């Protein structure tokens, strides 16, 4: 299986994503610059956190028009696995690959903290190694992670089981609608989330709960392609 980690000017979690793939599942992984116009060689695309293009105008607004994003849209349509983390989530919503938008945290502060997430849907390629309802420990680091969508969209998200992670209990750190921390598209191959699983892949980092997102993706890919082609 081969992973691409997109790199925009201002990405700062690209190395964490690269290392998470390398260290947790040992698969091939490349950095792919935002000007690239070919993602055909990759099975999964990670859109990392950071401050793409300085987050000028709006988080993700400018990155969404980078040449590589046309290829991400194409890859999404082909059913490839796409995971947007933090700024990556913001970019995927701006690109229209995921519904809704991310607003400034309701408390105005940038928050960098461990958070408890509830796995709301373990029936995705990204979360199959978790149990439904399981509480996991994944850090957040964002100033604009307050997920918003209108009532109609929220009803659709619920009806299609697209809410993947919620902040557990009443710990909602940023004011997100329905405590949403991560969602998927209707097909389930595109996931965006504000918390950082790539920063929770070893107990040394405070938690290893993010590891299973990467093993889930690999397992899903193996199932799809047959274990024989695993490399």
């Amino acid at each position, binding site marked *: 299986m081969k992973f691409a980690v997109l790199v925009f000017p201002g990405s700062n979690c690209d190395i964490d994503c690269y290392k998470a793939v390398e260290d947790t599942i040992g698969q091939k992984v490349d950095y792919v610059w935002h000007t690239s116009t070919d993602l055909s060689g990759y099975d999964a695309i990670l859109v990392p956190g950071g401050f793409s293009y300085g987050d000028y*105008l*709006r988080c993700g607004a400018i990155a969404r028009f980078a040449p590589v994003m046309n290829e991400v849209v194409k890859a999404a349509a082909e059913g490839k696995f796409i995971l947007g983390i933090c700024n990556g989530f913001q970019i995927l919503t*701006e690109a229209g690959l995921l519904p809704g*938008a991310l*607003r400034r945290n309701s408390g105005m502060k940038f928050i960098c903290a461990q958070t408890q997430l509830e796995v709301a849907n373990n029936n995705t390629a990204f979360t199959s190694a978790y149990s439904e309802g399981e509480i996991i420990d994944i850090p957040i680091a964002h100033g604009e992670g*307050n997920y*918003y969508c209108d009532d109609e969209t929220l009803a659709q998200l619920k009806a299609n089981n697209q809410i993947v992670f919620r902040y557990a209990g009443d710990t909602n750190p940023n004011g997100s609608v329905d405590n949403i921390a991560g969602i998927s598209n209707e097909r389930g191959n595109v996931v965006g989330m504000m918390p950082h699983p790539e920063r929770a892949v070893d107990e040394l980092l405070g938690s290893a709960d993010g590891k299973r997102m990467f093993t889930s993706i690999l397992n899903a890919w193996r199932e799809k392609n047959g274990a024989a082609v695993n490399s």
Partner: protein
Amino acid sequence: MKAKVYVTIKQNVLDPQGSAVQGALHTMGFEEVGKVRIGKYLELNLNTSDRAEAEARLTAMCEKLLANTVVEDYRFELEG
């Protein structure tokens, strides 16, 4: 031609910056202040003299890039 573009958070969407400024103004004794909304103001110089075309182009710019219409409204004024 010069365009002034205003982007604001939709009325039904929480504006934490506006709320923080409102709170500060109240603390300072400006109790008459009701709701505060904070937005963005952009000045664009357009290389055209066709007003109708400029309006159509500006609408496209706002819809595509300058505003996120999920959470923001926009309006613009043309000068010259």
